[in-house]
């Protein structure tokens, strides 16, 4: 399949089940809501090394947030429920509770609950106050700046982690520019986050390594400088590859996000240096979710 000069390879992204939750972080200003959100979703690119994968889903207008202040929705995913219930209160406690004027609310209902105030209230050292209104409990934790307000807990969802596309381009500059355009389009998909820096991965990995103890190592088949030293997936005109990884609350969300990215790249076309779009997989035997690029674009 070739669209606007860009080859859509007959490949698929192989993704895995993850457990995720959404949080709504608010603050007196949009600036501080985003600072808290970015901080709490930092160092959360790969679940292997970070314990979770997280990112900003979208800015939430004041009129849509639980306290009427500017907000940011974030999504956090872990490999299982136990992993999630550990990282969520820890990250909120270190990055949201500490952030000026912030508050933190459940962004989804249903599923097994994950603690917010249920765990963080103890910071109040006995001065914390619970309010039960409309069947929901909020906590008020006194802090030096005033009060930290948060919901008791948030819901969880069986999501999908590890959706991806690979952008094969004629130069590093063109690869990055194309990836930026794709990431910007993909980030608008509801229910998805792109957990890597700016949504883009420059160092996609393969499973395993020649070194003992390494679970993942550089994806040498896609490294342009190794073209002459073994099997390569890159045609001669490709000089750089960028990957965009997608975590979503559902298979459909990841599929929609994948399509948004491919459409943006196709719109750029071969003239902007985009040679081909590929996807990372492990032969289809490890992950239950397969996002076939050509099916998504058909």
């Amino acid at each position, binding site marked *: 399949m070739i669209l606007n000069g860009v080859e859509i390879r007959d490949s698929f992204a192989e993704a895995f089940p993850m457990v995720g939750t959404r949080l709504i972080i608010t603050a007196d200003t949009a600036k501080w809501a985003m600072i808290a959100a970015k901080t709490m979703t930092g160092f959360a690119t790969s679940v292997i090394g970070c314990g979770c994968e997280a990112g900003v889903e979208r800015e939430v207008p004041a009129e849509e947030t639980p*306290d009427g202040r500017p907000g940011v929705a974030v999504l956090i995913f872990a490999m299982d429920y136990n992993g999630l219930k550990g990282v969520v209160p820890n990250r909120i406690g270190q990055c949201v509770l500490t952030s000026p004027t912030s*508050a933190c*609310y459940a962004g989804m209902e249903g599923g097994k609950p994950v603690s917010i105030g249920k765990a963080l209230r103890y910071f109040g050292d006995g001065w914390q*106050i619970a309010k039960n209104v*409309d069947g929901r409990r909020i906590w008020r934790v006194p802090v030096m700046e005033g*009060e930290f*307000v948060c919901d008791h807990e948030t819901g969880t969802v069986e999501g999908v982690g590890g959706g991806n596309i690979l952008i094969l381009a004629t130069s590093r500059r063109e690869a990055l520019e194309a990836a930026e355009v794709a990431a910007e389009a993909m980030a608008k998909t509801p229910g998805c986050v792109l957990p890597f820096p700016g949504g883009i991965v420059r160092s996609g990995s393969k499973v395993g390594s020649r070194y003992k103890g390494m679970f993942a190592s550089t994806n040498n088949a896609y490294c342009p400088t190794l073209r002459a030293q073994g099997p390569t997936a890159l045609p001669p005109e490709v000089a750089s590859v960028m990957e965009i990884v997608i975590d979503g609350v559902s298979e459909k969300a990841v599929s929609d996000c994948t399509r948004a990215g491919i459409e943006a790249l196709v719109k750029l076309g071969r003239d902007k240096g985009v040679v081909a779009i590929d996807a990372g997989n492990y032969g289809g035997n490890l992950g239950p979710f397969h996002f076939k690029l050509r099916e998504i674009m058909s």
Partner: protein
Amino acid sequence: MTGLVLTPRGAFEARVDLSGVLPSVEGDLAKLKIGYGAARAELGELFDVSGAADGRLTIESGGAQLDRVGAGLSSGEIVVKGDVGHQVGQRQSGGVIVVKGSAGDYAASELSGGKIAVAGDVGARLGAAGDGAKRGMSGGVVVIGGSAGARAGERLRGGVVLIEGDAAEGAGTSMIAGTLAVMGRLGRHAGRGMKRGTLFVSSPEELASGFADAGEHDLVMLRVLARRSHELAHLFGGRTRARRFAGDLTLGGKGEALILSR
């Protein structure tokens, strides 16, 4: 459909205990035995019972002798087109009771869910613990259009009580948790013995002596509550600042009385 309709056959000669007379009751409602003074009587002897069960029960004209209206209600709606006696909505866990007149003592006593709206006044111990109970209302919403008698919200454990008029002596006495709001004037010794919970009042003058001024604050919590409670949104009127009084400190209480800033 208007559901079941109870119309009094005449003036009552004794107090009437309507506990068990609920919209969900099965069988012939007219044959239901109810308390009538020291005796028992069939509901049909005292009321004309009409209509069909559809989750709604209307009591025409009401009366101050009708006790325990909606006691134990878990679903459905009861509308009383007049006054009710004592213990309306006692131990109600769901559903809605609307009283278009006034109510007696112990209204919403030990309520745990649902909503009670009384257009007029209520007697003493609104939402309080009933006989032999240690805790009062633990959930749900109560809105009083008029004024409340003594000790409204005594031993309140949860939920929201909004009194649009005045509250007599001892509002919020020994409150354990929950929210009690008084939009009108406050009687003496409000919040005495309060352990936790929130009182919304218009003036600190009648608070118990164990309350101390903690200053005026912009409270994010008020913004959240206003969006989760229609009744509190009505009370706050968009205000997010309040003067906080902590109490009852004489007993080590961690409750608060908030006075919304103008």
